[in-house]
């Protein structure tokens, strides 16, 4: 450990994963612990916010302890404590934020709030150094956004979903097909064995728009299933899944490709839980095969929620001089662009 190395602790509790991690210099994972709650939410068919919050408060100190043990480091050796400030479930976020405040206070460390989506993007920096300008496609249960970055810590949102997030649409259609929670990965698996032979709509929206809309597609799937049932026809679940996936993936890949050309970016980063989707990965691989942009998709465990990504984004915030006060609060609707433009020393 040389004196110039920066060690940052990250804490993430925005949804149903209780996570902490230590990252060195913003690029190297020292330790990364995620306590998943999927099993407890399964019986409810989705994340119950109050259940998630209850789990977080039970797990958080154990997760911290394991994080420091795995790293063979102590809190004293951290340069800053960083935490997901938002967006996310407010009750869940509050556990992380208050943990970070208490730890930073007890150990006299700087405290920094991090935007969850900034975290998803910075997960990629744990794999490969950024080259600007870059384009990020963030797709998860709560987000579908296209973001251009011209430099570290600054974010320009050029497109976002106008209704459901991509992951949300996956979950809803999965529920209609009676697939167990979490539905996204199940749909992906099913789609791989089916044929995309049903013509579901593609929502391109206005000419030149990088926004998304998935609610029409979701309704179309539900209607198609309903009509088939009335005609006493049976559609194969795997064909429905494959056709639905084809629609989602085509729009995501095409808009990402167009944006990459228009903004003339050097790298294209795919982030968020849905980045684990094989259908999406394949479509993007094909689309960017001959493109001049480098396509980066992080490994599975860095696509889903984790705290290493928060520590990675937090490292940049630390180096740029951002500091939160003891009045740091959870902000369930924290805006990414405004987060990027926030003043120093709040």
């Amino acid at each position, binding site marked *: 450990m040389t004196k110039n190395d920066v060690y940052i602790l990250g804490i993430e509790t925005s949804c149903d994963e209780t996570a902490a991690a230590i990252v060195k210099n913003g690029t190297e994972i020292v330790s990364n612990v995620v306590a998943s709650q999927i099993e407890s939410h399964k019986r409810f068919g989705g994340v*119950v916010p*109050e259940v998630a919050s*209850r789990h977080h408060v039970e797990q958080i*100190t154990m997760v911290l302890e394991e994080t420091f043990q795995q790293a063979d480091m102590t809190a004293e050796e951290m340069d800053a404590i960083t935490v997901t400030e938002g967006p996310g479930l407010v009750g869940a976020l*509050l556990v992380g934020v208050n943990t970070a405040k*208490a730890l930073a206070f007890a150990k006299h460390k700087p405290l920094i709030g991090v935007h969850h989506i900034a975290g998803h993007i910075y997960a990629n920096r744990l794999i490969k150094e950024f080259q600007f300008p870059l384009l990020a496609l963030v797709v998860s249960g709560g987000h579908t956004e296209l973001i251009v970055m011209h430099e570290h810590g600054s974010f320009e949102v050029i497109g976002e979903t106008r209704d459901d997030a991509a992951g949300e649409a996956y979950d809803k259609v999965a529920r209609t097909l009676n697939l167990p929670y979490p539905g996204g990965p199940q749909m992906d698996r099913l789609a791989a064995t089916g044929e995309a032979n049903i013509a579901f709509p593609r929502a391109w929206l206005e000419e030149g728009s990088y926004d998304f809309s998935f609610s029409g597609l979701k309704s179309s799937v539900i209607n198609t299933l309903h009509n088939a049932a009335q005609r006493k026809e049976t559609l194969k679940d795997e064909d429905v899944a494959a056709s639905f996936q084809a629609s989602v993936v085509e729009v995501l890949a095409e808009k990402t490709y167009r944006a990459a050309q228009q903004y003339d970016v050097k790298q294209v980063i795919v982030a968020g839980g849905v980045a684990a989707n094989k259908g999406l990965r394949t479509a993007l691989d094909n689309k960017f095969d001959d493109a001049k942009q480098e396509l980066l998709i992080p490994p599975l465990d860095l696509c889903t929620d984790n705290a290493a990504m928060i520590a990675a984004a937090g490292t940049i915030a630390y180096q740029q001089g951002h500091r939160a006060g*003891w*009045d740091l609060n959870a902000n369930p609707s924290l805006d990414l662009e405004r987060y990027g433009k926030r003043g120093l020393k709040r």
Partner: protein
Amino acid sequence: MNILAIDTSNQVLGIAILKDGSLAGEYTTNAKKNHSVRLMPAIDQLMKETEMTPEQLDRIVVAKGPGSYTGVRIGLTTAKTMGWALNIPVTGVSSLKALALQAQLTDASICPFFDARRGLVYTGLYKNKDGALSLEENEVNIPFAEWLEKLAQRGEHVVFLSPDIELHRQVITDYMKDLAIIPELVSHYPRAGYLAEAGALEESGPVHALTPEYLRLVEAEAKWLEQQGKN
């Protein structure tokens, strides 16, 4: 023995610092404001004023509920993390017991309660036995009318303490008649000094195992269990 006590389990935000066995400072506000925003600045301020550093603390005491789910978690998360980071014990004390302590000198039974909406309260019954409060009736989440009926049947004087006393004053006197003792204003708001005192005497287990006392299942969980029962 230096103790930091934290109570954010209901609307009152309370912090106290006991230094070498005496009360060095206490902070109490009763405002409809966000505990998450105000707790740590208040701790910081009180620590400075009492010339205390985190390293000098020997124990943290926290009100572990019942109360507002979010409020309870803010206090408990803060206490657990500080205790873990400083490697000192953290004691969770019932929020109801902490309130009951404000009438600990009475010989009558003490009924602290918090309004839990839809006619329900969080409550329990305490009594002073040889200088310490002991639990007479377990803490429950119960329709207040049902609870009062039970208390009235005991035929003993009861001191009622609650920040929500005005909401329920009438129904208490309806059921309890002259068995009800309702003190003046200030005793109804929990003060963290009492919490610190109670926590100094209570056992504390491992920090990781300390969990909130909600006294109520999550609604989705209750429904799920009901469904399981039917099947």
